[in-house]
């Protein structure tokens, strides 16, 4: 059970205290001792928020879009928690977290809470910290949690896997190709946004995205499922689809995040996606899959930590030396090391 001060903090959080919320988010990020007990205590209060991942190349307007979208949701009375992730400098370990600059419109609203996070160390660590931070916001009672990440690779894919709806933001004029194609992130997008629709080249960007979708799309759902990793496994491969689970085709929405152009459309498709998941009863399966991924992640982290705690540094050093001297293959080394567990 959590210590007294942590217990009090947990109670304050559940009562809506913002200072408690902000402290707990730090504890989660810093993996402070006892925080696992807090998260366990909060867990029964989670599972209510809808989680939306907003990802895309640098500068496409993600923060601006979060700002405008959150404001629109607030107008409907929906409360919004926001997590904005920016990269840690690999050289210094420091970071400049600047997403709030674009979210000024949300200040002074008790129905909004914005937290900036640096990617910090390991990729797995970030996925864990983000997942836990989302849960804390969820337990704090926010209806919606928006998670902004730079769509640059595996870490983003990991984060996005914890979202219910993933929005990929593109913008015209960022190069010849659509940015996401290189990152291989298109497969995980539920909604595609072409932001900066006031800029030249919008049509070209939309066309490129359409072409990409068609390439990956109707011919082989089996393939899409494998790539996507979050749709239902296809039972009726002969027909190309399972009759009971209509397929979600990612819609393309054009927005101007600095105004409100396209924001209503975006809210509509987000709602449609949510309804799709719930109606098609895919939701439970996605959730199950996400839990499985989370358990694997946690197991991996915990086993690794325990192993490194248990193993004698000298043994590890010796094994490394033997491998370097080509006396031992890395594959055989693992078997040897595991015997020490």
């Amino acid at each position, binding site marked *: 059970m959590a210590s007294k001060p942590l217990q009090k903090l947990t109670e304050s959080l559940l009562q809506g205290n913002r200072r408690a919320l902000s402290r707990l988010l730090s504890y989660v990020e810093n993996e402070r001792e006892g925080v696992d007990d807090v998260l366990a205590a909060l867990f029964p209060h989670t599972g209510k928020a809808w989680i939306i991942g907003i990802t895309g190349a640098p500068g496409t307007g993600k923060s601006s879009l979060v700002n405008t979208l959150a404001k629109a949701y607030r107008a409907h009375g929906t409360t919004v928690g926001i997590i904005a992730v920016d990269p840690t400098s690999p050289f210094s370990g420091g970071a400049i977290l600047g997403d709030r*600059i674009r979210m000024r419109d949300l200040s002074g609203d008790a129905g909004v809470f914005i937290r900036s996070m640096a990617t910090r160390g390991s990729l797995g660590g970030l996925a864990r910290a983000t997942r836990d931070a989302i849960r804390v916001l969820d337990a704090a009672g926010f209806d919606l949690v928006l998670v902004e990440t730079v769509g640059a690779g595996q870490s983003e894919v990991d984060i996005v896997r914890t979202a219910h709806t993933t929005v990929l933001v593109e913008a015209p004029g960022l190069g010849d190709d659509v940015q996401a194609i290189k990152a291989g992130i298109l497969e995980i997008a539920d909604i595609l946004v072409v932001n900066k629709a006031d800029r030249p080249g919008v049509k070209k960007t939309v066309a490129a995205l359409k072409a990409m979708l068609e390439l990956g799309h109707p011919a082989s759902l089996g393939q899409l499922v494998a790539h996507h990793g979050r749709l239902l496994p296809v039972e009726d491969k002969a027909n190309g689809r399972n009759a009971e689970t209509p397929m979600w085709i990612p819609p393309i929405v054009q927005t101007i995040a600095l105004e409100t152009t396209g924001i209503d459309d975006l809210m509509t498709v987000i709602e449609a996606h949510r309804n799709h998941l719930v109606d098609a009863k895919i939701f439970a399966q996605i959730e199950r899959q996400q839990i499985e991924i989370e358990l694997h992640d946690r197991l991996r982290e915990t086993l690794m930590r325990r192993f490194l705690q248990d193993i004698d540094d000298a043994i590890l050093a010796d094994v490394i030396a033997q491998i370097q001297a080509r006396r031992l293959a890395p594959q055989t080394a693992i078997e040897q090391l595991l015997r020490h567990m």
Partner: protein
Amino acid sequence: MAIRVLIAKPGLDGHDRGAKVIARALRDAGMEVIYTGLRQTPEMIAEAALQEDVDVVGLSILSGAHLALVPRIRELMIANEMGDVPILIGGIIPDEDKAKLQEMGVTGIFGPGASTDEIIDFINTIVKDGDGFEAASKTD
């Protein structure tokens, strides 16, 4: 774990070059800098400090409005249970105002002549870890 610093620019003047230089220097010193940009009201600053759970609040003030802005920010931070979070000020502060600012709870004041190293050292000294800080004081 990284020290988290809010760098904010209250008041109406439109120059944030100095604030950006500091932000970058702090990042290069391994800190996480939450940068909020120009024309922040005291309410916005206190709110950002709260949501981001920062260890230090750094204010860049060139407008001369420090005696009006600082007490309000401090008051709001105390109301947010953040009275123990040190406030540092960078900018042009007349000597006769420095004592007043310290009385208002400002922990450090850095003029245009202060080096970024000096500021980094100062932050590293006053912030023991993410959970508290040692009382210290500094003017130049």
